[in-house]
């Protein structure tokens, strides 16, 4: 392999593969949204498109040694105790120094929770709209719909 290409892959693709994956996914979705003739395929493209963005955001929050952003002081086996906070426990908490490198960045997760909800809502509404289209035009192919509109309709 050409060393320049190899170098490029090593410096720009391997450590940043998350961006490459999201861009490729997103472009697949975008292409489907722009060019597909079937309305449902467009919506599938839209879903891929939105998912790609979610992937991108979540990958921002990743840290190499980071776990889930839930603070556990007693290890995973002591759930019962964390549930019932004792006065003393919370006193201890304040003095505990939390190593922020051990936890993933919570903010992208929060944002994406919202984005997922928005995606679901958009998809649901879009499906409802495409059902209406199917009811009025009898088809979901864009060119057929436009053909049906041509006689009599302006524009």
């Amino acid at each position: 392999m050409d060393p320049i290409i190899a170098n490029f892959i090593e410096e720009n693709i391997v450590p940043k593969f998350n961006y490459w994956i999201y861009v490729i996914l997103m472009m697949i979705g975008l292409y489907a949204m722009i060019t597909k003739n079937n309305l449902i395929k467009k919506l599938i493209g839209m879903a891929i498109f939105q998912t790609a963005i979610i992937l991108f955001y979540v990958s921002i929050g990743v840290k190499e040694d980071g776990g889930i952003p839930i603070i556990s002081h007693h290890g995973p086996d002591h759930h019962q105790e964390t549930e019932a906070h004792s006065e003393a426990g919370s006193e201890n908490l304040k003095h505990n120094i939390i190593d922020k490198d051990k936890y993933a960045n919570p903010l992208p997760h929060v944002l994406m929770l919202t984005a997922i909800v928005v995606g679901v809502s958009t998809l649901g509404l879009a499906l409802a709209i495409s059902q209406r289209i199917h009811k009025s035009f009898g088809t979901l192919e864009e060119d057929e719909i436009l053909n049906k509109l041509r006689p009599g309709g302006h524009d």
Partner: protein
Amino acid sequence: MKVFGLVAVFVVGLLLLSATQDFPSWGNPRSAASDGEVSSFYIEKTEAVTKVPNMVTAVLADFRGYDTMFETVVIFIAGIGIIAVLRNFEGSDSSIDYDNDDNGAGLLARFTCSLILPFIQIFALYVVAHGHHSPGGGFQGGVMLGASYILLALAFGLSKAKRIFSERRTMIFAVVGIFIYVGWGVLCLLLGGEFLNYSVLDSILPGDAMMARSYSMLVVEIGVAFTVTAIMFSMYSNLSTRGRLSKGL
């Protein structure tokens, strides 16, 4: 169109990739986003100021609670939007005989469902309630609860599910959910704090201001769960019957 689409896609893709040259690499804990003041604050201080160890829940329901309120509103909009677009109210009149051909799935499926439904619902409630300490929260729990009703409709027919969860009731549930969330925020207003400033609620809740935040998060998560449950079922029932709500799939 195809060529245009391809060109557009390539231009956009290259533009997006060109920006990655000065992005941090995968998993770099020193990136501006992960190492920034805001992120560090959430990780280091959340539990101290809200007594909630699950930072995601705390950020979602408290720091960015305003966002989450609108997120719930988005779900609500999707629900009433689908009804506004698709619902065919005339169609429901001819639904007198739907009971005959709307018996749902076979006996085996119905039996299995009746066995697992309570567990699904209990788990859903657990997810709602336990969002402070483990992954979970109103949305996740609400979706599960909604799914349980969808399963009910699939197994026993939509008419049966509607007897439990009628259209009117879904709307009331959805509205009540948002009402709980927004009303809780307004309660903070009335007690002299900013909107959604749960800490002022310590006068009516047990514990100190931080515990008030923790409790309040539970309240708003329950509100979210109400709306999500109702709207998920409403979306399903409208989309599966083309808005006539008379006959399942």
